[in-house]
């Protein structure tokens, strides 16, 4: 369904994403993990059109979408959430989602948009009351609203960006189950970007690990979790360099 080949993004002299290729099959949940600054969000922004790739191709359903304007990509069937929720505070919760339902589905009719809004709000467990203000939502509620907005655009592929940051453990489990429900019930393919490995590993079919803009591992969650390169990125080198730095500091202080 999605085929990414040789994707590169440079900001001046800095290469944020370096020659990344991957595939996503219809109906799967692909986890995308990596430390801060590894290029996950940059990849997302290129898939959703917020950033144009420096080079490389993105085929979605057989069509090249690299470099298209965001609204075109959304209309072609890719929905996204933002890492930090970006609700429209001038609109009610319902209007936020109805907006996405209207413009995300090629501006058909208001009735259809409002229907999509009701369905999406119910799916994520937010009230479908038309007058509820966004200001009443907490961190978990805002993340649900992000998801509802993305769902209202009727995506075939959902890009969920670190949707669990800032939630407690129960909320995290709930959110992870919700993503799985979305896939199971609506048949939406999902790419899920996340810092937190634990919950993600439980839900995803496949994992891809990024470090410094490059793909370092890909496969089943169990295999990836045991990959020495992944362990090194997440735990190893950090601990070693910290120890080395501490030893160096001690040596200098002594001498």
């Amino acid at each position, binding site marked *: 369904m999605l085929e990414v080949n040789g994707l590169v993004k440079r900001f001046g002299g800095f290469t944020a994403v370096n020659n990344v290729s991957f595939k996503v099959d219809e109906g799967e949940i692909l986890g995308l993990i990596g430390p801060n600054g590894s290029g996950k969000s940059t990849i997302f922004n290129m898939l959703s059109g*917020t950033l144009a790739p420096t080079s490389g191709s993105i085929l979605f359903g057989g069509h090249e979408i690299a470099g298209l*304007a*965001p609204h075109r990509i*959304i209309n072609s069937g890719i929905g996204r959430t933002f890492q930090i929720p970006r609700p429209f*505070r*001038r609109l009610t919760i319902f209007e936020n989602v109805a*907006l996405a339902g209207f*413009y995300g589905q090629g501006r058909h009719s208001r009735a259809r948009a409002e229907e999509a809004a009701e369905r999406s709000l119910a799916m994520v467990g937010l009230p479908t009351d038309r007058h509820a203000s966004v200001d009443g939502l907490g961190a978990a509620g805002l993340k649900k609203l992000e998801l509802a907005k*993305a769902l209202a*655009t009727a995506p075939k592929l959902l890009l969920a960006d670190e949707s669990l940051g800032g939630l407690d453990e129960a909320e995290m489990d709930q959110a992870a189950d919700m993503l799985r429900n979305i896939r199971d019930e609506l048949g939406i393919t999902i790419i899920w970007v996340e810092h937190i490995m634990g919950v993600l590993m439980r839900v995803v079919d496949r994992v891809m690990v990024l470090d410094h803009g490059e793909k370092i591992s890909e496969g089943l969650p169990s295999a990836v979790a045991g990959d020495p390169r992944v362990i090194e990125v997440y735990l190893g080198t950090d601990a070693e360099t910290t120890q080395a730095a501490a030893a160096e500091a001690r040596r200098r202080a002594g001498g």
Partner: protein
Amino acid sequence: MIGQGRLAAWGIGLAALVALPFVYRDPYHLHILVLILIWSFAYTSWSMMGRFGLVSLGHGGFMGIGAYVTALLWNHLGLSPWIGIPISMVAAGALALIVGYPCFRFRITGHYFVLVTLALSGIVLQVITATRDYTGGSLGYTPNRTSGNKLLALQFDDKTTWYLIALGIWLFGIVVWHWVDRSMARYALEAISEDEDAAAAAGVDVTAEKLKITLLSALMTALAGAIYCQYQMFITPDTVSGIAVSLQMVFAAIVGGLFVSLGPTVGAIITILLAEALRIGFGTKAVGWDNLVYGVLLVLFIIFLPKGILGSLLDRLKPQRKVPRAHEQEVVQIARPGT
């Protein structure tokens, strides 16, 4: 949704406004009312985009184009305003697109957008002044009086006729305001004014939506300029164009209330009564004083009454009518810190 009561109130109010010139015929007062209605329409046109954070100081330019193009076509080519006005509107619309497209495409927003539009206003004023062989420059310009069909020339001596025309135009502006307010485009524009990337991620074509509202606003403003010219039969660059006119639009819309349909109308009543009071009270000594008062009032309003007179009044009267939108609440919190 408009309730039964509000619809009835609108109906009664409109009937009273239509009946007024047949009952009350004082020409000076009717003249003031016509001015208020025409400027209300101009301010409403400005607020169409101003309410979405698209603050334009270029609308004096659109108004000037509406007035001058219509008058020039009439005097030089003998083209009836019925054709001249649409042409002037198309000219203003084309200019709006030429200025708007690069701004929106390349994300020139906020203060930078204001500066671009300010330049637009200045350029139109300069062009009118510089082509004085055709436009009369800063001395002003008068459409030729017709000796033939008055309807064809859109020239009427009768104040009642003008009052009814102005009332119709004003009502048209209010209807368009409500039409936009109830459309999905309002959701999109509110979203864009907050966060363009997030709006695009909801599927909104940000550039197109901003262009559409700018075009609509410019077309209406040009119409206001043309109607003003036909009514006054005398225009100068300073009264229909330039930065002073643009600033007056901003002032009136904010003072009256940006987020309610009749806000700009209230703003027009205040600005025109103020200008008239100064003119009558102080005569030629007070020329330009109104702009000074506008400036001071604008500062005071932005600080203390950001929703404008009508917006604040409606909130006070019917606090339960609707949940204030979040950005309106924010403004209130700024006004009352610590609550």
